[in-house]
């Protein structure tokens, strides 16, 4: 006997949530599916594969003020930004939930990023299991699965006339009123099987191919458009600048990408990553070598967004397969 919520009850619950929470859910805009703040539940779409951009922008916004500084009566006054309102992210896929969990590692490691911590504490994650796997998804090779409840507070799986409900955390329990739930005897639908990508021993192989010409060749067609980093649920590079106007200073943080020319430019015009190959290699070395070495898991969740969006088909699945082959050769 599993818990169940009818579509009607689900909509009325979501409507109720908008009264005290910011509700972020998938909506349709300009022929895209994007996570946006919804005021009316009619805007939410339930029939989609995945959003164009990941929900990381709810915890790590595209642009954010970190604090304001002002000089008043000879005293320097720093006003940090506080996040007051509770947020519910509805409709995120298990891969994206894992993405958030992976981002927690760098952002919440001591000393924790103050703003990320605030966002994280105020957010509840209500996920939607995948009933189909896109041809480019590979979450099962990256530690997740289409019906993986970990890293979520509530997981919903679409069934007849409603959703099977899995309440995973106390936070989730507190959010969803029991009176809206019923039970069902119907078994949950079998999860789809995304294609597999060979990740066994990948970290070591990535180290082995680090100094090969593979990266320069691959980077021939890369245009360093930054799209892979921007759509990725686990990429988190940023730039910070201070803007001053009439004696008041604002520190702003915005997304950046290791693919940008000049990302590693230092004083004296020294550029450690001054070739296309070095820049492109960095993204994969970070995800498949440095991140696992530091945080114990590959820095990719297999959502397939980078594969969908890359204008020149730089395909991480192909690269992983190439790294495995090339690494074995280098070892031999």
């Amino acid at each position, binding site marked *: 006997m599993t818990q169940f919520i009818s579509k009607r009850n689900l909509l009325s619950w979501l409507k109720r949530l908008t009264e005290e929470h910011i509700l972020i859910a998938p909506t349709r805009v300009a022929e895209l599916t994007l996570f946006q703040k919804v005021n009316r539940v009619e805007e939410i779409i339930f029939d989609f594969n995945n959003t164009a951009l990941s929900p990381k922008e709810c915890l790590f916004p595209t642009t954010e003020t970190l604090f304001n500084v002002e000089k008043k009566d000879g005293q320097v006054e720093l006003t940090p930004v506080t996040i007051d309102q509770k947020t519910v992210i509805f409709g995120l896929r298990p891969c994206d939930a894992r993405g958030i969990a992976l981002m927690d590692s760098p952002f919440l490691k001591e000393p924790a990023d103050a703003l990320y911590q605030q966002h994280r504490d105020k957010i509840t994650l209500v996920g939607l299991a995948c009933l189909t796997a896109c041809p480019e998804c590979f979450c099962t090779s990256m530690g997740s699965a289409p019906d993986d409840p970990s890293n979520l507070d509530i997981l919903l799986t679409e069934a007849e006339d409603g959703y099977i409900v899995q309440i995973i955390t106390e936070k989730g329990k507190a959010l969803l009123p029991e009176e809206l739930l019923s039970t069902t005897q119907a078994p949950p639908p079998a999860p789809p099987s995304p294609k597999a990508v060979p990740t066994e021993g990948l970290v070591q192989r990535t180290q082995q191919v680090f100094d090969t010409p593979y990266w320069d060749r691959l980077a021939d067609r890369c245009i360093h458009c*930054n799209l892979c980093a921007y759509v990725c649920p686990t990429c988190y590079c940023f730039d910070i600048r201070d803007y001053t106007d009439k004696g008041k200073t604002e520190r702003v943080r915005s997304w950046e990408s290791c693919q940008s020319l000049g990302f590693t430019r230092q004083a004296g015009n020294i550029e450690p990553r001054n070739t296309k190959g070095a820049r492109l290699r960095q993204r994969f070395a970070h995800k498949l070598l440095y991140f696992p070495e530091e945080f114990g898991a590959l820095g990719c969740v297999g959502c397939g967004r980078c594969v969908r969006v890359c*204008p020149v088909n730089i395909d991480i699945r192909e690269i992983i397969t190439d790294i495995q082959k090339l690494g074995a050769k280098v070892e031999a």
Partner: protein
Amino acid sequence: MNLAEQIRNKAKELLESKTVECVIGYERATDGLTARPLFVYEPEEVGKLIFDQTCTHNLVKYLLNRRDKATAIVVKPCDSRAINLLLNEKQIQREKVLIIGVVCPGIVETSWNQTSEKLPARCQLCRQHTPVVYDFLVGETPPTEPAVPKPYADIVEMEAKSVAERQSFWAEHFSRCIRCYACRQVCPGCYCSECFVGQLDPLWVGIRIAPSENQVWNAIRAFHLAGRCIGCHECERVCPVNIPLMLLNQKLEKEVGELFNFQAGLSAEALPPFATFQKGEKLGIGE
């Protein structure tokens, strides 16, 4: 012999004779349906080259990474205009580039894992099916160019709206801009070693992603391409949030055509419209 075979033969010949170090063309992408750029360095690899209606990419920008190296490149007519642009602006040397021009049947609309039979607007309105500059021509030049239906139809439609309607149209679209600069990265006309958005002093556009900043970015990039944009539509294709960028670029193309009777990319020698003037010209300014 079909287009792909002709290209492969020519590529093999050029690489074997060491006339060029590299041939830039297209190969099949990992979805098995669409295309992606390919750099061939060895004659044995030319078998990977393809050419069909999925070959949407403009490859000309890659020439800027190989300025001093002999390179062959496969170009469609729209792409060939980009070569003329770069020659005109002295960014590439004509003798270093071997142009394999393809008489283009039109490119179908594709996205990841999806092709179609539909030609996008830019192909339907195309007035040049034969490249404007080439060393070798692949395909048969059509005897006549098709009569073009009313051009700039979507621009005229925008012009018919009120200023307030246009203001809110652009505000809505620019609000989605995440300043990834993919439009700039893919554009063959955008090659400044320091883009105006990277300038710290004066600070034209900072790192803040906000509606008015987004407007300055998109408006000025379009203006920097005025009289230079050759209409490959790559910027609009790569935009992750579907901003109708060509509505900006084509408006400027239309105005430049009407004001100065100039079209970008047709000639490697013609003076660009903003690098010249006519003393007595009446342009509706200051009159």
